[in-house]
């Protein structure tokens, strides 16, 4: 499907250009805050939900294959609504849950698909985080340095390894171990 004009916000988030959040907060934070406050929440609840939603959006934005096919505001509101729905459920506010659960299924299919992608990514990243923490300190450091853009030769110097080939072999070993741990929990 064709990318929506708001894809530029996704690309900015992917590139770490967080100045774009000035616009996102200005356009969407007030209405989402008001909606949560009117549905048994407080301004603090709204702040937590909105921040979680931005983090979830940023996680998915870092997937280079992700394409936003609807307005960002619609997706952001749906993420926030589901998060607030879950909190209401935890607080046993069943009546509110039913009302908003019914509302949820009125969303258009493209929006539902994007929402699912964002939520699946969040779950996957939690699992990846859990298994990443089980890797050796050296593996964690090596993978972080490589993703920061350093070359294998530069990482070899920083980690006191013989050369770039050693870094390359260690990297593949670390990824293999990480993948085994990740698959084991699924």
């Amino acid at each position, binding site marked *: 499907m064709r990318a929506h004009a708001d894809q530029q916000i996704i690309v900015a988030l992917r590139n*770490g250009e967080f100045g774009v959040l000035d616009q996102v907060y200005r356009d969407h934070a*007030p*209405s989402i805050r008001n909606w949560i406050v009117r549905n048994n929440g407080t*301004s603090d609840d709204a702040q937590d939900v909105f921040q979680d939603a931005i983090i979830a959006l*940023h*996680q998915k934005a870092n997937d*280079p294959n992700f394409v936003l096919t609807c307005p960002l505001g619609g997706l952001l509101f749906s993420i926030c609504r589901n998060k607030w729905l879950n909190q209401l459920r935890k607080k046993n506010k069943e009546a509110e849950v039913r009302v908003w659960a019914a509302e949820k299924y009125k969303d258009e299919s493209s929006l539902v698909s994007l929402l699912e992608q964002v939520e699946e990514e969040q779950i*996957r*990243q939690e699992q*990846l985080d859990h298994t990443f923490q089980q890797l050796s300190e050296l593996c964690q450091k090596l993978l972080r340095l490589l993703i920061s853009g350093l070359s294998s030769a530069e990482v070899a110097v920083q980690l006191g390894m013989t050369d770039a080939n050693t870094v390359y072999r260690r990297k593949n070993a670390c990824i293999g171990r990480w993948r085994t741990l990740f698959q084991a929990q699924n």
Partner: protein
Amino acid sequence: MRADDYLKLDQYLQNELSDAEKTAFEARLADEPNLADELNARQQMNTYLRTQAQLPDLEKKMAGLSTQYFDDAAKPRVRQMARRRLLYVVAAAAVIALLLLVWNPFSLSGTQLYADYVQHPPLAFVVKSSLEEQVATAERAFKAKDYETVYQSLQGLIAAGEGNPQLQLAFGISALETGRFAEAQRTFAPLAAGTSAQREYGLWYQILTYVRSDNFPQAIELLQKNQFKEPLLKVKAAALRSELE
């Protein structure tokens, strides 16, 4: 998988393969599920690692913005209005009259509500070539949020009956943003009643114009009578309706 596949995977992920190598590698991905699985896993890991690397900057940015949008000063306006109304009840009649003469709290509410809900869509000013030069100024001004210039640039065209819905919407927005509410309504109404791609935006801006000019009953009536299909407008309309009713 082959012995050098890990190297190929790295090069593919870092976009270092030539076009020919990339095509050949993608053909293999279609035929070799193990290779495709390995690529998918590495993409997911990279997504996680990139996210984690950027997280401190993201959290710092959100902390600053949260103070601005979610602190105590940002409590809902309706509660503030309720407290204000209570004060009016206990105030002397003369003071009430004076206050209402010099300061109408509802006008503040309309302005604030409008600010909360307005988000102008990106507009492409695609017009026939004979109008391009005339419209270029308006397009630049619209992007720069210089609505007086947009209004002045498009006024002649619209008055002459230019029927491009994007231009009509831009002109209506410029009228609304510069306080020409009646003219904004006259521009948005035919859009809302039409069948162009801007129909729902025309309707939404009719509602926003009523909000901005404190005519809440008319805004509520339009919200009650109409349904939006566009996801963002649907969400905003539901939130605004719940706030007004």
